[in-house]
């Protein structure tokens, strides 16, 4: 899967998408290098989700082409689906099933051997072992998001789409998601994530593209983009982590979250 390292893992050319008179995407171009983290930054309604849905074969573009892992999204959607996973804005877990059953379900649908062993491994990797036999409906927002991402990673797809993975999460859960994303990229997975948080893009991305009103208005590394930002913005970005550090210092270190989740799990089941 890493043999295509020289080729971009995602290639987007002149993609447009309109709903009647509403032009959501007006010609989007970019490449994502294999094994890198690419952040698509934009405010609500900029077209981020539409673009992710096109790349993950849920939606067809009006014009333009896109290839993912070497496969064209419109002519070879089946091959694209084998190479990707999508984590949407709303945690796509089955609330009636337990965390474990959710993971086994995905492993079976991907026709992997030993679905049970894979589920156990994923539960351990995402600190959900203790909660594994509880219904997902009883999970906290952070746990649900971790399960959601774990389900996406079953079968190790080479390209991962994360659509606003941390929207609505508290700071600790956010940090956990960030660590997962960094680890994935270290292991060679290509990641395209969308976000409306500047600090998230700053923390994670090798390359950042700003999507505004349906087109990419800037695309570069953090250092390149920073030169474009007015100084006032820089001050704002610097303040944000400080508050977070204070918050995290007050409520305890992030490494405790797994234990806390397990503790609250015990309380809920009582």
């Amino acid at each position, binding site marked *: 899967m890493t043999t295509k390292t020289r080729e971009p893992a995602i290639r987007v050319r002149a993609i447009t998408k309109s709903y009647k008179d509403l032009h959501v995407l007006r010609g989007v171009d970019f490449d994502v290098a294999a094994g890198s983290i690419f952040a698509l930054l934009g405010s609500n309604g900029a077209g981020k989700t539409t673009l992710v849905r096109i790349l993950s074969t849920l939606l*067809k573009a009006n014009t333009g082409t896109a290839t993912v892992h070497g496969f064209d999204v419109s002519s070879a959607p089946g091959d694209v689906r084998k190479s990707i996973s999508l984590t949407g804005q709303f945690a796509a877990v089955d609330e*009636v099933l337990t965390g474990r059953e959710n993971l086994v379900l995905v492993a079976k*649908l991907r026709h992997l051997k030993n679905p049970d062993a894979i589920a156990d491994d994923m539960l351990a990797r995402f600190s959900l072992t203790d909660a594994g036999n509880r219904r997902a409906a009883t999970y906290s927002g952070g746990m649900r998001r971790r399960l959601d991402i774990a389900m996406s990673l079953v079968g190790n797809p080479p390209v991962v789409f994360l659509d606003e993975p941390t929207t609505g999460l508290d700071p600790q859960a956010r940090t956990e998601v960030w660590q997962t994303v960094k680890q994935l990229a270290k292991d060679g997975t290509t990641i395209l994530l969308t976000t409306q948080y500047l600090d998230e893009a700053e923390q994670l991305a090798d390359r950042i593209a700003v999507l505004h009103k349906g087109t990419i208005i800037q695309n570069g590394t953090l250092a390149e983009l920073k030169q474009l930002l007015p100084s006032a913005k820089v001050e704002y970005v610097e303040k944000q982590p400080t508050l977070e550090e204070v918050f995290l210092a007050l409520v305890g270190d992030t490494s405790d979250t797994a234990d806390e989740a397990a503790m609250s799990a015990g309380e809920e089941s009582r």
Partner: protein
Amino acid sequence: MTAHVLSDTGTLTGRSLRHILRSPDTIITTAVTPVALMLLFVYVLGGAINTGSDESYINYMLPGILLITIASGIAYTAYRLFLDMRGGIFERFQSMPIPRPSVLWAHVLTSLVANLASIVIVTGVALIMGFRTGASVADWLAVAGILILFTLALTWIAVIAGLSAKTVDGASAFSYPLIFLPFISSAFVPTDSMPGPVAWFAENQPVTSIVNTLRALFAQQPVGNDIWIALAWCAGILVAAYAAATAIYRKKIS
């Protein structure tokens, strides 16, 4: 990919059957209304109804009650499909290499199993209340076959509702007219007791032919032409609803 149609449909059906096992109330509530209607008609209204036959009233009305059971049961199919679509799990399935028809067929097969379970409960209550039949194994198989065909036909209507609904209420509201349809048929009173236009409607709508067929099978009477009319209605509704549902589905996922 097509090689996995059967195994993926099986996996997904197992998933939604597990939903039903986790909330068996969906089967019980499906059975409660028909059982209540049965009690009402047999012990309150039935004494005043002249069916013009020697059959006990519960024998007369059970076929209609079974159709009402199915009509209220399929509302849950629309509801489950709607929740899948709203919750995001539907999109997860669509972005995975799963054959597209498997997602719908899993819901359809689950609907079939759930409705058969409700029908067994309602028939059990009817037996306690005095329903008797001398139907042979072949007759019972014919009854089961017609009920399965009717369930499939109505389930595909439920799929249309589940795919196109905007709200939870909308997803199940479509079933109310279907539940009501047996009342304007030969299910509870003979159609010739109704005024002209109503009788005409009752005699020419699908429920009457299905009810008459089931009643004849239970009473070991000849089914006559009714069985062919009943099968034609079921097959017609099934084909039309299936075509509409898959067209909506295809539009939704492309």
